[in-house]
């Protein structure tokens, strides 16, 4: 175990508390940089999605994890970013301009959503953001002169400074990675300055934040705007990666996936957004694999336990029918959320911290270390 002896106030401010962090993040960055030359094109494509989902995850963490304002409408902000890019592309606007425009537009709309949200908390805010997402979805389907309605829009190949960047090229991956890294660094900067602390203050006690001089309304709107803007940036990359966008891609299902990203990753640290993004992107091929192979495997097991050929085939077709049921994926997502909320509320990153601490303290680790305490009841009167 390493003990840090702080000798300077700088020690509390710097991003990497000690050299170990520099080494491990350096190695991670190096691995990510050589990834396109090592991994298969399928895995690279998944990695790009991880970057995009993680960017949205960080955005959602700012709003939900750190400011405490739940949102189930982030698919709408992603859609606004994606459609802004696709629309401006038709007029040959260069990439940097429509990239910024998408973030700016999503940010402004995020601020507008933030204003009515000032009076709402908890479940009511969730309902408000869901209805916002539904409104945006409907607008995308109906405003045909701009969005081409349900037929969707083609997104041309990205062209950056005169060079075309195909959606499966290493350059596109590096672009997504750069956006993710810049988002994370910007967010970390925010969290170690007054604005980030004001966000956390609002999450934990609005009354106390107010009496410490935090303009709660202003900071909630700021949080909404920042979160929406980052999601808008991610939306541009999302549109380019898919090369075709239509309203049914930005449904409530996608918003729920974003919530899963942070719930499963862990809502208290930015690591959670990345871990959750890896989880959500990788679970899809895993489920497909199960769907394709499970019936055969189960039939094999049944056969070894003495069922006849006829019986095994019967079982195989029944399992296959179950695996291809409609809505099974949604049900599995639901079960995953419930299990995580019940058994690992700190998410994958919390689990990682526990494993790390277990080895650091090896024989002395106590399970109670992470037990949540609920001793003092805060006054609800002053809300």
């Amino acid at each position, binding site marked *: 175990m390493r003990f840090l002896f702080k000798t300077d*106030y*700088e020690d*509390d*401010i710097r991003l990497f508390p000690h050299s170990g962090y520099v080494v491990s993040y350096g190695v991670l960055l190096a691995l990510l940089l050589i990834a396109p030359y090592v991994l298969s094109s399928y895995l690279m494509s998944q990695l790009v999605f991880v970057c995009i989902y993680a960017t949205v995850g960080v955005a959602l963490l700012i709003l939900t994890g750190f400011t405490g304002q739940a949102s189930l409408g982030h698919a709408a902000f992603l859609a606004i970013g994606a459609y802004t890019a696709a629309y401006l592309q038709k007029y040959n606007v260069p990439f940097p301009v429509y990239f910024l425009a998408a973030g700016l537009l999503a940010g402004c709309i995020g601020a507008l959503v933030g204003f009515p949200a000032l009076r709402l908390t908890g479940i009511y805010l969730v309902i408000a953001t869901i209805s916002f997402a539904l409104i945006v979805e409907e607008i995308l389907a109906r405003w045909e002169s701009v969005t081409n309605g349900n037929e969707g829009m083609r997104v041309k190949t990205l062209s950056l400074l005169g060079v075309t960047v195909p959606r499966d090229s290493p350059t596109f991956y590096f672009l997504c990675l750069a956006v993710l890294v810049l988002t994370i660094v*910007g967010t970390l*900067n*925010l969290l*170690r*300055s*007054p*604005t*980030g*602390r*004001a966000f*956390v*203050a609002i*999450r*934990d*006690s609005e*009354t*106390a*934040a*107010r*009496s*410490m*001089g*935090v*303009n*709660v309304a202003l900071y909630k709107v*700021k949080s909404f705007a*920042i979160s929406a803007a980052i999601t808008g940036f991610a939306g541009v990359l999302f549109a380019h990666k898919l090369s075709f966008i239509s309203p049914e891609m930005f449904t409530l299902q996608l918003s729920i996936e974003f919530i899963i990203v942070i719930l499963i990753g862990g809502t*208290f640290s930015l690591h959670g957004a990345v871990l959750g993004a890896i989880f959500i992107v990788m679970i899809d091929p895993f489920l497909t694999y199960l769907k394709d192979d499970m019936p055969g495997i189960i039939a094999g097991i049944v056969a070894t336990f003495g069922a006849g050929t006829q019986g095994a085939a019967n079982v195989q077709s029944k399992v296959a029918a179950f695996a291809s049921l409609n809505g099974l994926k949604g049900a599995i997502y639901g079960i995953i959320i419930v299990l995580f909320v019940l058994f690992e509320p700190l998410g994958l990153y919390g689990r990682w911290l526990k494993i790390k601490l277990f080895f650091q303290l090896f024989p002395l680790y106590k399970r109670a270390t992470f037990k*949540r*305490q609920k001793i*003092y*009841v*805060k*006054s609800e009167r*002053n809300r």
Partner: protein
Amino acid sequence: MSYFRAENLSLHFGGLKAVDAVSFAVEKGEILSIIGPNGAGKSSIFNLISRIYRPTSGRIFFEDRDITEQPPYDIARLGIARTFQNIELFENATVLSNLLVGRHRHSTTQLWQELLFLPSVRANEKVHRRRVEQVIEFLDLEPYRDKLISGLPYGVRKVIELARALCSEPKLILLDEPSSGLNVEETGDMSFWIRDMKNELGVTVLMVEHDMSLVNRVSDRVIALNYGRVLATGSPAEVQQHPDVVAAYLGA
């Protein structure tokens, strides 16, 4: 003119007069205690000053400025900090970041500067950090700097709340029952700190308190309240001898 003044302050919830035409003044550099039985309206007065409640009528002046209509977050910016009876700390943050939120009224940096963490932000952060460290030293909080609030005992939380208020470098501090839930030793420490705050930091203190020994030890003046009305004002000894106060506590 007084430093801080409340004039005919009233707070009515329907027919219930929680605070009823209360007037009082706090002089610069004094410690004024408000005492009274449960439900006398002591905490309501604090919530009126920090604008959690809007007064039904009456005005509040601070440094000859009418602050009755100021938004709640501006009260702290003017230099009035407060603590809460039931402790309102930021549970899932470290002690250090709790105290740094206390510095919020002194932060001058813009959002875009913070996103890039420009040298100006870094310099400001160091100033905040140094100020916080002075408060930590003043209140002996060194062992808890990097601890999460959710893991700390009640007595320490009470001190951290005081520290957070002091971090904003207030001119006037409102202490809502600083000794509630503390043991005798901790209450003793608290009384020394309250005196030191006045003598060393030059903070004016307005305090609601039930513990008469603490009130006697630190207060310059005492106001006794019952049913939202002022019963008596004066030195601690005078107020405790006052027949109305005795009647209010013991029954006539």
